[in-house]
């Protein structure tokens, strides 16, 4: 008996019981579609959050001062020290920190921004031109301040999109106009690209960027720094750059116990790692739920095939009387369940992939995981073999005389 004939018998039996076949397949279809959709959602969420994090500044590490942890006085040698321009200079030394590409010292202050009748309180950030790539700030129109502006401490400002909207009207490009920062006039030379609220920290669209020297002379004085933004040479050297930063500042601040540091590093890689772990746990949970629905679908196949074997006992008896070998009967029922489950798997894959095309609120898209699709197809066929195997073996083992007597 050829495989073509077995296939023909199986298809004929499935078509003869169309409704039942379709309902049986439904369980697997839902299971497979759920596996693909849920993994795609998890994957899409991960990709979305990753893109938001890289928005913080690719390859950049931010050093922020903080009070030493631990109870006061317990660590006498580790009194809290602010970050200084000397710290920034040390980080810029290519001998001690070969993986550091640039160092941007940052001072920031809250200031009243005013233009004509409009006035609001925003964050003014003073730094060097390297701050733009370091914080992933892109100038949409006009220009960023440059080294010349920095050296001359020129009162020039680059406005965040929201600040420009609030001061000069939505969508305006007020290049050359003047804003008052705490009463001091600054000339607007550029507008930043809108970023939107993403990741931790303040909304970058409400910042005003100005040269470090200008901000220091106008507001903060030439004292301590709020942050130092450090850029690694490449993504791969980010970890190396981080440990260089740690060792340099630990030495300068006299820190021996890493748990008592009076500063901390924040890098996009760190945040990405934490979120990645959270997300993969989440994805695993979703896949688990989908897997359970697959199992239920598989049991549905067993159930229906058992019903089918019972219902067709007489037919099996006739076939055996006419010379069907046990293996021919086994093959027929096994192929039936495999066709059911494989077809259901294919439909489930189509629905799952189709479902990922539906646009989602929140701006992220489900991204299909190819591995999940392959696994789903393999699993659905395996379900057919595994869950169809028992009823098929029962059919094959039926004794012809008993099967024929059944009405």
């Amino acid at each position, binding site marked *: 008996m050829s495989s073509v004939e077995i296939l023909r018998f199986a298809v004929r039996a499935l078509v*003869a019981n169309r409704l039942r076949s379709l309902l049986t397949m439904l369980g697997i279809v839902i299971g497979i579609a759920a596996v693909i959709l849920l993994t795609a959602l998890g994957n899409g969420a991960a990709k979305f959050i990753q893109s938001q994090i890289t928005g913080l500044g690719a390859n950049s590490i931010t050093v922020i001062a903080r009070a030493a942890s631990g109870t006061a006085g317990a660590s006498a040698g580790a009194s809290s020290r602010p970050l200084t321009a000397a710290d920034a200079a040390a980080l810029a030394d290519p001998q001690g920190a070969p993986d550091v590409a640039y160092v941007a010292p940052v001072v920031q202050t809250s200031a009243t921004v005013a233009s004509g009748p409009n006035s609001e309180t925003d964050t003014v950030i003073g730094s060097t031109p390297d701050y733009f790539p370091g914080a992933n700030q892109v100038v949409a129109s006009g220009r960023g301040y440059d080294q010349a502006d920095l050296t001359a401490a020129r009162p020039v400002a680059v406005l965040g999109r929201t600040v420009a909207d609030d001061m000069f009207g939505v969508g305006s490009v007020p290049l050359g106009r003047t804003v008052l920062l705490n009463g001091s006039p600054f000339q607007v030379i550029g507008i930043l690209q809108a970023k939107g609220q993403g990741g931790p920290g303040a909304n970058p669209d409400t910042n005003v960027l100005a040269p470090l020297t200008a901000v220091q002379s106008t507001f903060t004085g030439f004292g301590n720094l709020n942050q130092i933004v450090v850029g690694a040479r490449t993504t791969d050297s980010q970890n190396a750059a981080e440990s260089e930063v740690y060792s340099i500042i630990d030495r300068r601040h006299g820190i021996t116990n890493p748990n008592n540091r009076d500063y901390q590093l924040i890098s996009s890689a760190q945040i990405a790692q934490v979120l990645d772990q959270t997300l993969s746990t989440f994805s695993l949970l979703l896949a688990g739920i989908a897997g359970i629905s697959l199992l239920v679908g598989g049991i549905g196949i067993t159930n229906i095939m058992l019903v089918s074997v019972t219902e067709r006992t007489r*037919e099996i008896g*006739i076939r055996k*009387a*006419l*010379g069907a070998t*046990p293996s021919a009967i086994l093959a027929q029922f096994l192929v039936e369940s495999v066709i059911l489950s494989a077809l259901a798997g294919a439909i489930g894959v189509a629905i799952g992939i189709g479902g990922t095309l539906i646009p989602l609120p929140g701006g992220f898209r489900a991204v299909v995981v190819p591995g999940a699709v392959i696994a789903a197809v393999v699993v659905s066929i395996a379900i057919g073999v595994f869950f169809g195997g028992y009823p098929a073996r029962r059919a094959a083992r039926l004794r012809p*005389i008993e099967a*024929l007597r059944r009405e």
Partner: protein
Amino acid sequence: MTRAADDRSEAPVLDVRRMSKVYGEGETAVHALREVDLLVRRGEYVAVVGQSGSGKSTLLNILGCLDAPTSGRYLLDGLDVADLDERQQSILRNRQIGFIFQSFNLIPRTTTFANVELPMVYAGVSRRGRRERTRAALDLVGLADRADHRPNQLSGGQQQRVAVARALVTRPALLLADEPTGNLDSASTEDVLDLFDGLHATGRTIVLITHEERVAARADRTVVVTDGRLAEQAGARP
């Protein structure tokens, strides 16, 4: 396989020796067949008659390799059936025996053509060979124009003729008919019995079980089963 070495045409198609069949054990044991002997030669047309419960169905099931005897020997076309496993018995049924049942036993929702073709599918006959032989068998039983009908679209007599065509296509050594006319009206009974007469005339070996006298009268020989024992009887029943 232990095929008898002598000339095939001389070997009996059925050779049953001291065969018994017991259902159950101990005090509740039922002796369906008691040390039965039966010899059927090639080309013979034998009717097995007996009342219901006499053991004739048990005999037919064993002759058709659907059931195994408790003791005794059974040679089918010179081959000892006891030596065969389940798979080999399936193949033996396929090649050597054509079944005709009282309740027709066509496969439902399947066309006449596919029903007749079925034993040849299990025999591994090519598609083309199957088509030719199915057409020839349907011609023989006069149902060539019903090839695409399903069993529920045929009368009982037509269904039984399809079953006869199905029993013939593999050119078996033996046709086993279990009350083939039991569910048929007298006109259809005549049709089917005429068909058997025709097959007998072309040299087919037929063993037919019946409780109807007029059916048994058509056979060369009648064997009576009473309480599990066989007795030869010539001519009509007394």
